[in-house]
């Protein structure tokens, strides 16, 4: 007997329209339709616009660098700027962000330098910024694991009576992982000051959402955990900011966690090693290009008279400067020290690692001696390299 999946499923209930404050055409949504959320003020919207434009330019630049073969990999967030920028903008400087590998533009917006963001994707080191200075956890590659870290950190802050909130970013695929469930459940039971922001970009690499889950929305899942859930237009930065800010405020006020789903779309491939034409139609991508989060806000701001040409040009220039700085950092090769391999494994030094370190140092010394011997002595660079290696050894 074959199982008829369709007939055994609970009839699909149509998802409600996502919450939005500015519609696709850039018009404000009537307040009777916004669930009590109101448009952020103009200064805030301008700031969100500026941050999105700069983030977009950075993302496009890094993708280009990947295509030039100058980065090992880069997961683009093109089209997801509204979710990313809202997440960062809703936080105070003392709050913590727990990002995934796709959230580099959130790091940029929180002040991390391009060179430090790209340390991992260049292959220099696993993760390359000052976590405590920026209050950003290392970008997590295993899915949903960082959500538990966010819950733990937020709980520790609560125990210490600090006002710190943790916001964690997840993808739609990550919500299928057990750790997402455990994080939602722990947070709700412990009333942890944490905000879960799921960027539903509709694909987990190649697997579409309807093969990922059978319920209406990810936000609906919040009901089962006993916390508020919001289904938001992830391409409307005004709505994303309003809802995320409210969730952060609620967490800070001791009201526990919130689950937010931003419905968006991944315009680019999963990474440069992925061919999206195998699993989705170009026409679908075009539909979503038409819902661009930056264009939408720009239309709104222009129609409100809140964005001047001079301002737009100034922001565009700032974006170009960021792109230039990003290219510039690629011209400087990070100095990698092979012996650093052994430096950060344990706080307490181990004899066995010291032995392995010594063995590598000996190999390096031998290599550079061979190089020096086979190089004419007038080649000063070889001599310098040799000296440096000896000094390390």
């Amino acid at each position: 007997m074959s199982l008829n999946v369709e007939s055994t499923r609970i009839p699909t209930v149509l998802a409600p329209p996502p919450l939005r404050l500015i519609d696709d055409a850039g018009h404000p949504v009537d307040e009777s339709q916004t669930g009590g959320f109101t448009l952020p003020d103009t200064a805030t919207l301008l700031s969100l616009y500026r941050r999105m434009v700069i983030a977009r330019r950075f993302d496009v630049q890094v993708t280009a660098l990947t295509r030039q073969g100058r980065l090992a990999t880069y997961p683009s967030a093109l089209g997801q700027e509204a979710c990313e920028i809202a997440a960062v903008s809703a936080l105070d400087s003392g709050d913590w962000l727990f990002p995934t590998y796709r959230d580099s533009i959130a790091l940029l917006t929180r002040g991390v330098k391009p060179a430090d963001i790209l340390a991992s994707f260049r292959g220099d080191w696993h993760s390359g910024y000052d976590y405590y200075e920026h209050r950003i956890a290392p970008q997590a590659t295993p899915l949903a694991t960082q959500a538990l870290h966010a819950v733990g950190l937020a709980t520790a802050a609560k125990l210490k009576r600090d006002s710190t909130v943790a916001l964690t970013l997840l993808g739609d695929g990550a919500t299928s992982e057990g750790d997402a469930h455990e994080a939602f459940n722990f947070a709700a039971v412990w009333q942890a000051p944490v905000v879960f922001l799921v960027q539903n970009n509709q694909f987990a690499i190649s697997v579409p959402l309807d093969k990922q889950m059978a319920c209406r929305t990810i936000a609906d899942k919040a009901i089962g955990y006993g916390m508020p859930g919001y289904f938001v237009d992830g391409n409307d930065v005004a709505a994303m900011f309003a809802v995320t800010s409210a969730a952060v405020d609620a967490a800070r006020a001791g009201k526990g966690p919130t689950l937010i789903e931003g419905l968006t779309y991944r315009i680019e491939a999963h990474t440069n090693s992925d061919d999206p034409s195998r699993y989705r139609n170009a026409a679908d991508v075009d539909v979503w290009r038409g819902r661009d989060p930056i264009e939408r806000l720009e239309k709104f701001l222009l129609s409100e008279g809140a964005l001047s040409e001079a301002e737009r040009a100034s922001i565009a220039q700032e974006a170009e400067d960021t792109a230039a700085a990003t290219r510039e950092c690629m011209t400087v090769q990070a100095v990698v020290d092979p012996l650093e391999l052994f430096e950060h494994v344990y706080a307490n030094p181990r004899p066995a690692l010291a032995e392995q370190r010594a063995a590598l140092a000996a190999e390096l010394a031998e290599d550079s001696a061979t190089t020096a011997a086979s190089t004419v002595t007038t080649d000063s660079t070889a001599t310098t390299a040799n000296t440096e290696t000896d000094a390390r050894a």
Partner: protein
Amino acid sequence: MSHTIAGVATRSPETLTMASALNAAIRDAMTDDPTVVLFGEDVGPLGGVFRVTDGLYAEFGETRVSDSPLAESGIVGTAIGMAMYGMRPVVEMQFDAFSYPAFQQIVSHVAKMRNRTRGKIALPIVIRIPYAGDIGGVEHHSDSSEAYWTSTPGLTVVSPSNPADAYSMLREAIASDDPVIFMEPKSRYWTKAELTLPVTTAPMASAVILREGTDVTLLAYGPTVKTALATAELATAEGLSIEVIDLRSLSPFDDATVSASLRKTSRVAVIHEAAQFGGYGAEVAARLTERNFFYLAAPILRITGFDIPYPSPKLEEYFLPTPDRILAAISRWEWS
């Protein structure tokens, strides 16, 4: 038991089981360091299924001792976030095989965080895992998972075999800035000793010679230390002098102490409950052979559990390494 008053130890000798020594270690660590927090399944009012956390909830309250939802990945994952915020979490996995849902968090994050962040994020977490068999536990309650953890760089893996070490090593583990997998042999929880706390034994990373001998070195840890000592006792009747070393720390491995013993006796056997193939004993035998081949009079033996899933209670006596089995194995060496 008397308690520390105003920082002055006013304790007298008392008979402690390993479980109560562990309990005292956690209590003293929590008293000395307000950042130490304890959580896991049933560690609160119940005091843990083995009563290792007995009374701590009443003494320190829910902010420092708490029952977590039943989810091991969640326990370890949230401990990571707490450690990032300046706490020193001590978490319990309740039973060995229950730690497997947390494998991802332990291997991908606990072990690697220092390395990924170039030393900027330290995770001073102690993950207590009651492990091994010989207590008549049903399936999934008697595993020896040490090889998974010892083959993961970034973790410290230790296992005490007696109450004094249990206290001393747990205090050191909680104070350590490295994450520690603290493996508690369930069958030894009720082992008793007369102690005056606080007690400090050998450094956690070192192996200890429990019994001197000249003919054979037996390497054991956790549950098999008692077995090795019993073997040595039996062997004296046969005129065989056995040295017994309690490894205590599985990672790091104390090469110096063990190699010195090997060079004295020239014959070594490793005893553990876990399966043999790809097991911890294989690493011990290989590294000792690499360093000491010309001092060996015979191949290094492994007397271990069979390469099968841990058996049901009525069969475990056939599975566990026994003194007879160890002596029989040793007797098959060529003795000249």
